[in-house]
């Protein structure tokens, strides 16, 4: 099961939520892989002391033009076809790798077969494991407890080369690496993998948490692609609400189910709550605002280790989330098993997708830009009234 953790705005606590939820799930006996998709500013590893199993350079495809085979000025098809001006003609074909999107069109189009795929380095991918200490075993529910070892948590992190503009290829590379990892082979020493295999209860399915970058454009879209559920993290402030609205629109555009966690609950006002209620979007948890929590996070410590109330908050969050996601699955099954269940199914999907089925806006007109303009309009009207 893939769960994405995202938000329209940076700094709402996505990474805090990701690392604490990952730790909680790992302690509860789930095999967990945390994928840090915020390759521009990867931070998840700061909260753990992962044992790095390997580091690999990540590459993006770029064309390599063999000038001896190139037909020359009379052809220049690659130059004409490339929409990103990554190839230009200057007496010969010149390549601008930083502009290349790696679409492969030039290779496809070249009639002389003069263009082959080469690569350039865009960053690194690292895989590590974190052995969650068993000291906090009291937080583990009895049916999942394993006395000696708690399972290891896998951490897959990408780091964009500084100066590199495009992060989506690196995010795709993370998912590619993830696929290659055998579910139970933790990628470390055989012995340790063996131990882990024993300690992980098989009935628990693997959970992949994706810590997404902020925003609503390509890096986020790439990170959320295909997730079974998305947790949107926000805070109760005007900026928080505005950015949450953008994130919600993004999820609706992608037609993916989601719910919201209100972080630093109590720091601002009620506008986020009111808006979510009006939109019938499920609130998965409210994590209270506290100075203590801020200090723990500042140090790069896990909240669920330091603060008992946080341990409870994360346990409750997971319970709620798990309930919603399982419901969603039943819904999907019901939908495929025919007419009889379909009424129930659609009733369920109303709650799961929140507004997706009942209060879905007209996506064509309710674009972010249109709403932005409408907000400005209403602001000026309010002033005039």
């Amino acid at each position: 099961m893939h769960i994405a953790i995202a938000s329209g705005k940076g700094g709402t606590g996505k990474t805090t939520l990701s690392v604490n939820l990952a730790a909680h799930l790992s302690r509860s006996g789930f095999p967990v892989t945390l994928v840090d998709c915020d390759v521009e500013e990867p931070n998840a590893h700061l909260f753990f002391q992962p044992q790095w199993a390997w580091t690999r350079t990540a590459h993006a495809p770029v064309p390599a033009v063999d000038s001896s085979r190139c037909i020359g000025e009379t052809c220049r098809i690659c130059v004409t076809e490339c929409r990103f001006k990554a190839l230009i003609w200057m007496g010969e074909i010149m390549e601008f790798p930083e502009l290349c999107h790696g679409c492969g069109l030039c290779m496809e189009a070249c009639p002389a077969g003069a263009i082959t795929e080469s690569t350039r380095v865009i960053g690194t991918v690292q895989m590590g494991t974190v052995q969650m200490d068993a000291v906090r075993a009291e937080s583990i529910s009895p049916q999942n407890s394993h006395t000696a070892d708690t399972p290891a948590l896998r951490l897959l992190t990408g780091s964009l080369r500084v100066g590199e503009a495009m992060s989506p290829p690196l995010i795709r590379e993370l998912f590619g690496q993830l696929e290659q990892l055998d579910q139970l082979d933790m990628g470390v020493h055989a012995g340790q993998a063996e131990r882990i295999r024993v300690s992980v209860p098989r009935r628990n399915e693997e959970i992949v948490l994706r810590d997404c970058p902020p925003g609503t454009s390509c890096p986020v879209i790439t990170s959320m692609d295909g997730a079974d559920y998305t947790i949107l993290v926000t805070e109760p402030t005007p900026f928080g609400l505005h950015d949450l609205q953008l994130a919600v629109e993004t999820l609706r555009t992608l037609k993916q189910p989601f719910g919201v966690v209100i972080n630093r609950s109590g720091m601002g006002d009620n506008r986020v709550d009111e808006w979510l209620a009006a939109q019938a979007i499920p609130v998965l948890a409210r994590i209270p605002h506290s100075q203590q929590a801020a200090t723990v996070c500042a140090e790069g410590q896990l909240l669920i280790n330091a603060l008992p109330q946080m341990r409870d908050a994360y346990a409750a969050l997971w319970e709620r989330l798990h309930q919603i996601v399982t419901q969603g699955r039943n819904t999907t099954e019901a939908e495929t098993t025919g007419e009889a269940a379909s009424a129930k199914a659609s009733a369920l999907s109303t709650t799961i997708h929140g507004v997706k089925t009942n209060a879905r806006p007209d996506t064509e007109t309710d674009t972010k830009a249109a709403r932005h303009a409408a907000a400005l309009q209403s602001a000026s009207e309010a002033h005039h009234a």
Partner: protein
Amino acid sequence: MRELLVISGKGGTGKTSITAGLAATGPAKVVADCDVDAADLHLIALPQAQGVVPGTTQAHPFHSGQRAVLDPDQCTQCGICHEKCHFNAITEDIRLRPEYCEGCGMCAYVCPAGAIRMQERLCGQWFRSETRFGTMIHAALGIAEENSGKLVTTVRTVSGDTAREQGLDVILTDGPPGIGCPVIASLTNTRMALLVSEPTRSALHDLQRIVELTRHFRVPAALLLNKADIHPALADEMRAWCAENNLPVAGEFGWTEDFTQAQLLGLAVTEYRPDAWKPRFEQLWETLLARM
């Protein structure tokens, strides 16, 4: 033109609140919001009943790049486009997923039935607004749209033109998060970058990457250490790191409720509590302008 860009790496450090404070103080200027993905500055600069004059926000469409459009009547379901698209933007049953389309034109090129054509793409809008801080140029990238870097460039070009028209010499820009394409578009040839950070492990890590980026593009940078008192030991570590790495510290602010309270009211912190904050922001401007 003296352009001051405010950035922070990941966000949550108070970047936009600081930009609002700078917007409300200092020299006459044009204000630009280059966080086109999730712009927030207009929530302060153009809140309800705060000096918005109707008709002074002009919206302009922003077109950039192309997008594939499929004509199902001509499509023979051969599947070549699905196979060739490098971005997973065409499903196996030949449906376009526009959010994933990179606009490269591969599918249109390979389609033997001519069922796909490339169309100009509306990626968002940019705005020119008259605010109590001066003219503001801002933008909204469409949901799941590409080309944020080019929209940033548009905002910067228009800001520059506006400043010239108005005979102004200073542009204040709220920057995007991260170190990728929109940040790079904001940073190139900017006079100075103000890096807003806070004493946390994550923020220190982000700061190191963003400093590397400013050096890569040869843009002088200075740090504003926000919430400096939330973790004194880490704050010391940050100051030491700055000293070691020749990053000047332009100012330090302590943690305060004032930023959130001001935001709730749609005000810059210097408007919310002028006695406490105006002098500090004027001082910050002085320090920065001396370096610009």
